[in-house]
């Protein structure tokens, strides 16, 4: 290097010194810890002029006859130059100012101080101040870029110099030198703005070409003292410097030295410099920029924002780590760009002038202007605050809180349980440096990343363990680091850096392991479900591209969600992921949108809440800690001006309501729609839980259904009022059958006949559907139940055989047995229904008609009349298409003419049945039990008893029975009596009209009369049972025809299944 280093000379006493040139470059001005400012004509000047400015002078700057010094009484003073008269105080700090500097025009002064602030002050008017916050350590040195483009901060913890754009405070680039690993102490811009000189602690002097990011000059201090002051000669050719020993030195020919090496590239790089910076600015501007930071690691976001926005946010936090990270990330970009630019531009460069006006119109160059890839978000533990914090929450979930302390005195972990009944609080010393924690009812799982010597470890404190060793530890193979972990019920999962998920039992047994398609983002466990989110690709323009897997680990092992994309808001990243207390996966993104998995709509994600809407100010956030579906609660911690809460003061949990972003929620309609679908969505977990074999709160479920149906009814009424009849029908489609009947009543009452008619059709359809489903179910479970019953019956039969003292013959016993079997076969599916239905139904219809057996009977009844007569396979007959009310009256007529019609009504049912093998079991059952009673009247009492008891026990089960019972209201009885007279009066009346007319007339009756009718209706139920047995007598002849084939009958007339069971026996 042709640069010449002049010998050092004594300047000041030992201590911090600073140096600068005057405007013309004639004299060198220094200051030192002796409080003097000395003005040297040249390096050889033996009699410098001294001005005492204070006890100690830390820094000096000179421009336009003003000498600015930073002195030890925490002020920045102005003196006139060269006279040295005090000219007032420019600004003050709470502690020493470290460095002062002018901008090119001399109008502004930048001052960096030990209280982490940088102030930019107008020289002429010291009230015009701008304070820059955001640096996390004493600012040791500041410099203006001569083009006013950058303000430069030398981060004292690193061997690099970082450039920030002064206007946006975005980090633009980093200068570093491979050979210099010493901490940079001071930086100065060359007057041309092209070079940057830096002095290091170890006495190295470095000069960079800023655009090329090349270190063009390296010089060593002759004694290796710390360089603490540097200044460029205004012509740019010389640098003076001072050290902490008070010596003054000079580097000559710097610019000329560096010019040849870089002049060829100067112009081109200079020209593109503006462009480049623009690009960067664009790139990291505003949203993009924020996204980028936050995306890179959730932890760093708030601090970064403080920097980016350059506002005086008071939430300053240590930002050292992030600035560095950021820098390295940017560096890559820069170097790439530079490399691609240079070859293009070199031929054009003529090397004429190295110094160009700083702003040159941007030369067009081929740049990639498509979507930019987003840095993938880093793995995190949901419910934890950033790792770099000294005091942080390592986990906050529904079980408890885990806090991590990592400061000078202590490296510890505190585990605290919300419910002290689970376990008492724990204090662990964190010798391994765990960074990841999960907490469940059973255990605490901790993991640390590996270091050079130590492998990554997983530690589990299994406090619910009943043996004495409550702790286990597992080393992960070398080169593999734990990235995320979670606990489920009886298992633990750890995702590692080698894209692997390892499963452990909670006691420490290694279980399955599998590979992930991408780097893990986070994991969550609940019961037997494991939820994994990973990067499935590169996101662009601030978006993340995440995939999600949901795996069922228990008995039914399966992958429920197979790596589908996880929807997030635009330009956001995942902030929280987990399960609701009821076990539904749920995620929260950085935009505050909470999404919940909708299992009934093909595992889609439905946004249920936007926490940002409840925030008062833009910088406030809610930190989600848990989601509950019943009651509907979003538990989160409000954070003022940050994304996550500090550990102290202890934050309090707030509860937010859910609100689905439906349209027009200001209107009544929108509100009810939102309520309805929210209710549906948040009660999906009942289906899931019952299908995976958990107990469910059936009371809560039925209540939820009631609520939903009520809402539907309200919406129905509203649409009715608005005369939107089509909409009414649409709504009715969502209703359960018995609510539809309510709706019909409402419609007919509000005189909407067309609507009522439509609804009638709908109701029929629904009933048919219901019935078909029922039949399907009947067929399926029959197998199991019969098989089960056959054993049971066997035992029963034997016991009964012994009890039959009269010694009935084998045949009889056989017959009785088969009858019972039939009955059982018929009975059992019905009994089973309540437990089977919930998921069967749930899977089929989104609105989940009530699975309660009581409801279904009511629903099914009016239509059973017709269907009971048909064989199960037959399509809907005529009687099915009649409307509800018709069928109701039909059935109601029957009990009225009870004894008389019973034969007729039954006969057509029975006749086709008897020869047919595949008849409805229920019909045969009735017939056979009846015949049996009649033929064996003289037999032992015990036997008749059992038979009697049997039908008595099954009334709610037997469809016909219930069907008969239901319509027997007083009104119907009355109507049957009076139908003729009504029809006589109005011969052209339809069935509906008859009923309506009948209703009107019935109402005119006195209360006493009405009571009479209802009494009558009640009394009707008992004779019916009797009738059944007597009816058997009348059927006797019929019976006798078949008596020959008695033995064969069980095989013929009963369902195949019971025959099967019989054979088995």
């Amino acid at each position, binding site marked *: 290097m042709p640069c010449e280093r002049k010998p050092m000379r004594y300047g000041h006493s030992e201590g911090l010194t600073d140096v600068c040139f005057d405007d013309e470059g004639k004299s060198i001005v220094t200051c030192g810890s002796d409080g003097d400012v000395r003005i040297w004509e040249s390096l050889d000047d033996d009699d410098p002029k001294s001005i005492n400015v204070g006890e100690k002078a830390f820094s000096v700057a000179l421009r336009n006859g003003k000498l600015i010094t930073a002195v030890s009484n925490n002020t920045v003073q102005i003196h006139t130059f060269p006279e040295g008269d005090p000219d007032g105080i420019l600004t003050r700090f709470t502690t020493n100012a470290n460095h002062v500097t002018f901008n090119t025009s001399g109008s502004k002064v930048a001052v960096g101080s030990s209280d982490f602030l940088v102030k930019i002050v107008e020289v002429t008017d010291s009230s015009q101040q701008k304070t820059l916050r955001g640096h996390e350590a004493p600012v040791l040195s500041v410099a203006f870029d001569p083009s006013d483009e950058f303000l430069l901060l030398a981060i004292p913890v690193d061997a690099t110099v970082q450039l920030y754009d002064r206007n946006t405070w975005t980090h633009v680039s980093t200068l570093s030198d491979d050979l210099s690993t010493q901490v940079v102490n001071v930086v100065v811009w060359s007057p041309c703005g092209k070079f940057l000189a830096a002095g290091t602690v170890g006495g190295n002097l470095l000069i960079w070409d800023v655009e090329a990011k090349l270190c063009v000059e390296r010089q060593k201090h002759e004694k290796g003292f710390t360089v603490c002051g540097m200044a460029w000669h205004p012509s740019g050719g010389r640098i003076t410097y001072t050290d902490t020993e008070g010596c003054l030195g000079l580097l000559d020919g710097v610019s000329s030295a560096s010019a040849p090496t870089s002049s060829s590239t100067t112009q081109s790089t200079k020209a593109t410099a503006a462009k480049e910076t623009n690009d960067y600015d664009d790139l990291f501007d505003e949203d993009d920029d924020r996204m980028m930071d936050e995306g890179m690691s959730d932890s760093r976001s708030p601090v970064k924002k403080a920097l980016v926005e350059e506002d005086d946010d008071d939430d300053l936090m240590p930002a050292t780590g992030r600035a560095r990270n950021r820098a390295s990330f940017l560096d890559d970009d820069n170097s790439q760009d530079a490399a691609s630019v240079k070859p293009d531009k070199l031929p054009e460069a003529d090397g004429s002038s190295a110094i160009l006006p700083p702003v040159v119109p941007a030369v067009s160059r081929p740049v990639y202007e498509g979507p930019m890839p987003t840095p993938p978000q880093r793995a995190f533990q949901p419910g934890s605050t950033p790792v770099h914090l000294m005091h942080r929450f390592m986990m906050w979930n529904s079980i408890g809180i885990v806090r991590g302390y990592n400061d000078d005195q202590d490296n510890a972990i505190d585990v605290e349980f919300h419910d002290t009944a689970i376990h008492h609080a724990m204090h662990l010393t964190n010798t391994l440096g765990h960074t990841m924690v999960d907490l469940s009812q059973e255990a605490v799982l901790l993991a640390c990343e590996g270091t050079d010597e130590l492998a990554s470890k997983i530690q589990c404190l299994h406090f619910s363990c009943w043996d004495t060793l409550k702790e286990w530890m597992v080393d992960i193979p070398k080169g593999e680091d734990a990235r995320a972990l979670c606990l489920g019920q009886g298992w633990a999962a750890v995702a590692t850096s080698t894209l692997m998920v390892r499963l452990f039992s909670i006691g420490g047994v290694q279980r399955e392991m599998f590979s992930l398609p991408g780097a893990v983002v986070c994991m969550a466990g609940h019961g037997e479900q494991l939820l994994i989110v990973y990067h499935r690709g590169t996101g662009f323009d601030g978006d993340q591209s995440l995939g999600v897997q949901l795996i069922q680990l228990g008995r039914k092992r399966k992958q429920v969600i197979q790596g589908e994309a996880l929807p997030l808001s635009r330009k956001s990243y995942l902030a929280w992921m987990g399960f609701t207390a009821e076990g539904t996966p749920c995620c929260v993104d950085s935009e505050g949108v909470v999404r919940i998995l909708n299992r009934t709509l093909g595992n889609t994600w439905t946004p249920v809440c936007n926490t940002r809407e409840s925030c008062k100010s833009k910088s406030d956030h809610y930190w989600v800690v848990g989601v509950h579906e019943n009651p509907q609660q979003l538990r989160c911690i409000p954070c003022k001006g940050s994304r996550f809460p500090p550990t102290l003061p202890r934050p309090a*949990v707030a509860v937010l309501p859910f609100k689905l972003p439906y349209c027009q929620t200001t209107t009544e309609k929108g509100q009810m729609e939102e309520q309805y679908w929210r209710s549906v969505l948040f009660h999906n977990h009942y289906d899931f839980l019952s299908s995976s074999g958990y107990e469910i709160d059936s009371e809560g479920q039925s209540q939820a259904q009631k609520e939903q149906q009520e809402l539907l009814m309200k919406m129905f009424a509203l649409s009715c009022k608005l005369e939107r009849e089509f909409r009414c029908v649409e709504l009715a489609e969502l209703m359960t059958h018995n609510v539809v009947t309510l709706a019909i009543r409402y419609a007919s009452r509000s005189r909407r006949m067309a609507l009522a008619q439509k609804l009638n059709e709908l109701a029929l359809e629904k009933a048919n559907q219901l019935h078909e489903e029922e039949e399907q179910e009947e067929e399926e479970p029959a197998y199991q139940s019969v098989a089960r019953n056959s054993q049971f019956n066997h035992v029963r039969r034997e016991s009964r055989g012994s009890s039959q003292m009269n010694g009935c013959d084998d045949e009889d016993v056989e017959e009785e047995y088969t009858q019972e079997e039939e009955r059982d076969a018929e009975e059992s599916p019905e009994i089973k229904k309540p437990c089977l239905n919930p998921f069967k139904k749930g899977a089929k219809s989104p609105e989940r008609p009530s699975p309660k057996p009581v409801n279904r009977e009511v629903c099914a009844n009016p239509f059973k009349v017709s269907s009971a007569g048909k064989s199960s396979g037959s399509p809907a007959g005529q009687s099915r298409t009649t409307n509800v009310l018709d069928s109701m009256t039909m059935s109601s007529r029957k009990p009225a003419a009870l004894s008389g019609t019973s034969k007729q009504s039954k006969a057509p049912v029975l006749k086709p049945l008897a020869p047919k093998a595949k008849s409805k079991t229920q019909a045969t059952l009735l017939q056979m039990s009846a015949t049996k009673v009649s033929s064996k009247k003289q037999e032992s009492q015990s036997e008749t008893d059992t038979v009697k008891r049997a039908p008595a026990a099954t009334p709610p089960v037997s469809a016909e029975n219930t069907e008969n019972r239901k319509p027997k209201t007083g009104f119907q009885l009355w109507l049957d009596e009076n139908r003729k007279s009504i029809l006589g009066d109005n011969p052209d009346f339809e069935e509906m009209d008859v009923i309506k007319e009948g209703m009107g007339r019935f109402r005119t009756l006195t209360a006493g009369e009405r009571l009479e009718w209802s009494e009558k209706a009640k009394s009707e139920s008992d004779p019916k049972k009797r009738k059944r047995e007597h009816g058997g007598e009348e059927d006797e002849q019929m019976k006798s025809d078949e008596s020959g084939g008695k033995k064969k009958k069980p095989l013929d007339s009963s369902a195949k299944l019971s025959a099967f069971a019989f054979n088995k026996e």
Partner: protein
Amino acid sequence: MDAAEVEFLAEKEIVEIIPNFSLDKIYLIGGDLGPFNPGLPVEVPVWLALNLKQRHKCRIIPPEWMDTEKLEEIREQERKLDTFTPIPSPYYMELTKLLLNHAADNIPKADDIRTLVKDIWDTRMAKLRLSADSFISQQEAHAQLDNLTLMEINTTRSFLLNSLNYMYKLRKNLQPTRTHDY
């Protein structure tokens, strides 16, 4: 009415606690409380909060006004104005005392709060004495004092009423003598 009674009344004020146990709703004459979910804030009367706190069953979340910044503001306001300023809670003194005595560990800057509330209290008492003094010296028939809390009224009531009675007696005795003079 003595101070203990006022304190008793203050105990039915509502505060938020974070229980560390789980319990269904409890049905009391005064209303239903709960349900208590561990870790989730729930509103209960002070008497229950203190009881639970003493049994280490909960953490108390201090009322919103129990915050140094807000109290400082009130103190400044109180010092600036001659009249009584509105106080965030009608039982501020009692609640401060109760909560700080029993749950100081749950209240950030408990000592500062104690001092601030004491300051506010002292200022208000001084004002009260001053107004009582001017009330008597000017022999007013009535005075309007807004924004006084129960406890404050209570401290001065017995004394003021008694002394007014005495003064009334004295004046009555004084007047006949004067008339005698005439």
